[in-house]
């Protein structure tokens, strides 16, 4: 019984892994560094019709700056696959990426006030 369950779990887990691997051209490491919160925006230099379907889908999502996490969630692809797609798009000049400010200080009172005010406005 437990063995059977284990095998089923394996199959279900392995299933979706095949497609993303193909999507990213078999590559599993992006050439450029992306964070989940890196913001990506299209440059307008390439049209979606010039690209592979998955890359075009990414491009269509980033007219406005959009985070890597959001793209991954929208496309239902693992973040790592999206990072691979994005690094190709950056190389092609189709998008620019903006890493989150690395040294954002979590004790910066100006940032915390902006957070507090923004939240309280929604109440």
């Amino acid at each position: 019984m437990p063995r059977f369950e284990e095998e089923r779990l394996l199959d279900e887990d392995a299933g979706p892994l095949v497609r993303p691997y193909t999507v990213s051209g078999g590559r599993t490491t992006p050439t450029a560094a992306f964070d989940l919160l890196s913001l990506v925006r299209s440059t307008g230099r390439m049209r979606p019709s010039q690209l592979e379907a998955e890359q075009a889908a990414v491009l269509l999502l980033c007219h406005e700056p959009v985070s890597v996490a959001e793209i991954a969630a929208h496309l239902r692809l693992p973040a790592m696959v999206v990072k691979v797609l994005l690094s190709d798009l950056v190389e092609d000049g189709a998008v620019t990426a903006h890493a989150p400010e690395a040294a954002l200080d979590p004790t910066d009172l100006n940032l915390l006030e902006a957070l507090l005010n923004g939240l309280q406005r929604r109440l």
Partner: protein
Amino acid sequence: MAYSGDSESPARPVPTAIKLLVAGGFGVGKTTFVGAVSEIEPLSTEETITTASIGVDDLTGVGAKTTTTVALDFGRVTLDAGHTLYLFGTPGQDRFWFMWDELSDGAFGAVVMADTRRLADCFNALDFFERRKTPFIVAVNVFDDAFHYDPEEVRVALDLGPHVPIVSCDARDPRSATLVLVTLTKHLISTATTVAR
């Protein structure tokens, strides 16, 4: 600050991204919480684990719940023209803990959700944030059939210091969930000012 190497698109500044985490045990309401606060449709790469997870996860007290999230929940809140809040729900199951480090990198603080029917489920999250020195508050998610604890009883049960705020919430209610984040932010402000001193 500005985009580089791109003359075609206007160099509007990109908003500063502030990151908060929502953590807690399996089925405590993390996805519900992120969805209630977020201005975009709640996003997550959700794998449906149903019968296969029985015997792996403790389903006691979770009632009709048959699916669980195996990836991150993600939400966004525009704070003002220059600042955006990103909310990440951490995976509830221990076997997805490998994701926590990347998620908590750069996070300002965390909400640890607790279900009074299964308080011990949030011990891992508390340990994790204490170790990483990420400031957090505890939000007791009040389920209809739960035994209602006094916040101070929860403090004793979770062995929390007097400085950690404990609030109760209904994760389904946007206002209630937003109030939890307000409490967390006030806690971050007071932590920042005492640390600075």
